[in-house]
């Protein structure tokens, strides 16, 4: 079993509204996965299904080979930090560590202590009086010190200022380098994820629009700029993701595994932000159900 998360036709319904629809996904181990999408796209729903806080209304999800929330053995292997890094305001930093040690059999006291010291946190300080960045770091410490195989972080940096954001991601990457833990983190900002993630999942309007290794995604998408073309004349290996036309010029974003040979095109590479925005814009513009593009290495 090499996938940390596997979902098949996964869906979650609240009343009549589907917060997550027909989600099929395979996330290999050892990746830092960025889950991106606008607010309300279903990111938190997907993460809560993965940690077992929610039960699926349709389909199935397997995390680390088991059903989420199935038993203590499963819970022990997952570190989860919910949105806004919840901590107990009236408990001190030291109390949080004691609580972590008490509740987690695999607790790594040394690691927890080392992180707190390096962060310069005062053990006696009440969590309610910590800054947002410090609170996020404390929550990450609790999740990391249980030595999980999978860390799931819901919008971990959304409420942090740029410096705290950077410090948080530095700490997180250090943990990944040190422990080889798999990570899934969500964000509505691609820029936060660009450097830290190697796998991307784009979720828009309750559906997965794009999933794959970032390197492969970037290598298989190109922007073609040239004299006006009819997109129907493109080779069948080029899938149009986005197109714009003026009376003279066409700008077409294609997904293709093959080199673009037509010399009338100027071919440009995309950065991650362009790519994600193209997939997001596609759903907004069409209003219809787009086909899921799956890119595999």
């Amino acid at each position, binding site marked *: 079993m090499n996938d940390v998360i596997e979902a098949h036709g996964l869906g979650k319904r609240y009343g009549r509204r589907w917060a997550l629809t027909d989600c099929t996904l395979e996330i290999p181990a050892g990746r830092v996965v960025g889950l991106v999408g606008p607010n309300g796209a279903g990111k938190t729903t997907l993460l809560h299904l993965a940690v077992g806080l929610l039960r699926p209304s349709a389909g199935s999800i397997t995390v680390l080979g088991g059903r989420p929330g199935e038993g203590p053995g499963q819970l022990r292997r997952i570190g989860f930090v919910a949105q806004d890094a919840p901590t107990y305001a009236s408990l001190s930093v030291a109390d949080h560590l004691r609580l972590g040690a008490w509740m987690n059999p695999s607790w790594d006291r040394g690691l927890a202590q080392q992180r707190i010291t390096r962060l310069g946190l005062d053990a006696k300080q009440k969590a309610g009086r910590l800054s947002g960045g410090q609170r996020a770091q404390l929550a990450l410490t609790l999740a990391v010190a249980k030595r999980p195989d999978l860390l799931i972080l819901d919008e971990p940096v959304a409420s942090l200022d740029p410096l705290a954001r950077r410090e948080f991601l530095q700490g997180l990457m250090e943990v990944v*380098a040190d422990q080889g833990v798999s990570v899934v983190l969500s964000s509505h900002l691609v820029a936060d994820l660009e*450097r830290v993630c*190697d796998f991307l999942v784009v979720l828009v309007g309750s559906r997965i629009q794009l999933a794959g290794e970032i390197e492969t995604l970037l290598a298989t998408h190109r922007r073609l700029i040239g004299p006006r073309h009819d997109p129907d004349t493109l080779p069948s290996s080029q899938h149009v993701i986005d197109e714009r036309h003026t009376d003279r010029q066409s700008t077409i974003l294609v997904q293709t595994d093959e080199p673009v040979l037509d010399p009338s095109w100027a071919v440009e590479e995309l950065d991650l932000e362009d790519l994600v925005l193209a997939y997001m814009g596609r759903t907004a513009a069409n209003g219809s159900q787009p086909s899921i593009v799956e890119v595999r290495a």
Partner: protein
Amino acid sequence: MIEFHLDSRSGVSPYQQIVQQVRHGLRLGLLSEGDQLPTVKDVVAQLAINPNTVLKAYKELEHSGLVSARPGVGTFVTNTLGDGSFAAHGPLRRDLQRWLTKARRAGLDEESIEALFRECIRTAGEEDVA
């Protein structure tokens, strides 16, 4: 020990920037044989980037014979960039300056010169691949 930095607006991928900075360090003599490169953990803790990015850069450097990894110890510089390339800089620079004068006389401004230069490097690169 050198320290890496990333320019997010350069359009060059982070892994290539690390490779370039090591090569640059070798060329300028900031790095020489036997020097240790920062550990993967140190680099990611400093730059907040994915560890695989650093590993990929170090692998490429290893592949080109400039560094070698000693498991459990670190990555060390094993080679210098040929001085031959350094010696060639002078004449190449003079050629380029002559060419620049020609280009200006032909009416090209800096932007057109840069565009032309980049285009030539790109097409030459593609011919190499093909």
